[in-house]
């Protein structure tokens, strides 16, 4: 995508790439600019971002104690 402003259709087509931080610098800037002038796309992006954060809250970062012991023993025995 070039440096010229993007329209809503283009913005929506790269919305998840933007939220997933997968856009290159130019596209990221173009998206930020579009969101700063388009209330509808901004609301959509805000909605998808909040939903993404709710999904992230499902992550389980800490291992269960029992299972942890089992894997530690397994690693010892390798």
């Amino acid at each position, binding site marked *: 995508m070039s440096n010229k402003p993007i329209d809503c259709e283009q913005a929506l087509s790269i919305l*998840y790439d933007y939220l*997933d931080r997968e856009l290159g610098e130019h596209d990221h800037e173009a998206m930020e600019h579009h969101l700063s002038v388009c209330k509808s796309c901004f609301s959509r992006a*805000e909605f998808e971002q909040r939903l993404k954060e709710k999904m992230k809250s499902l992550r389980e970062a800490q291992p269960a104690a029992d299972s942890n012991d089992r894997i530690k023993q397994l*690693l010892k025995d390798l």
Partner: protein
Amino acid sequence: MGVSKELFEKQVLGLLGPLQGVARRLTRNDTEAEDLVAETVTRAWRARDTLESEAAFRSWLFRILNNTFISDLRRAGARPKTESIHADETNEDEAYFSVFEQVHQPFLLWFGNPEQEFLDKLLREDLDRALATLPEHHRIVVILSDLEEFSYSEIAETLEVPIGTVRSRLARARSALQKLLWQQAKDYGLGSEESTRDGEKPCPQAGEQSVAPSARKV
């Protein structure tokens, strides 16, 4: 490259929480998840010479986890729902469902904010249920992207598919997830017919816009 036992142990223990979390979401069963992680660690140690670099350890280990899960499913007689690259890249209509477009009412702001209301009422159990309902090939991309925050390239390495396939599979998975969440919301009475919109243009084209939203970042 291979890996020393010390480094292998350190990396596995550092990833144990996410490994168990992903295994639980794949198997939907705590005992099976524990077995899956144990089998993954054993297989990974046996295949340690296939590790190309220390930086690739996470995607390498989760690839073994996912492949072990699929092998177990096949052994148990279940047929994992997989999707061909061709199917990923076509059928665009099926890949698009948005809760936002169902509830957003830009011209009725005095009625409140239905999309925020939807999110506010969304419980962890709702998300858990919807995620668990997704077929395996959709569930894994959502888990790796949204829960574990893998980059598209890491997901591509983990699932051994091109990045374009990750992108399209993720779009379809998120669409399917939103469909399920929307269905749950309707079952709870949220999103009545009055609040749905058909055929409304999502937003004005660039250049026509004059409304600047708040300056805060999304």
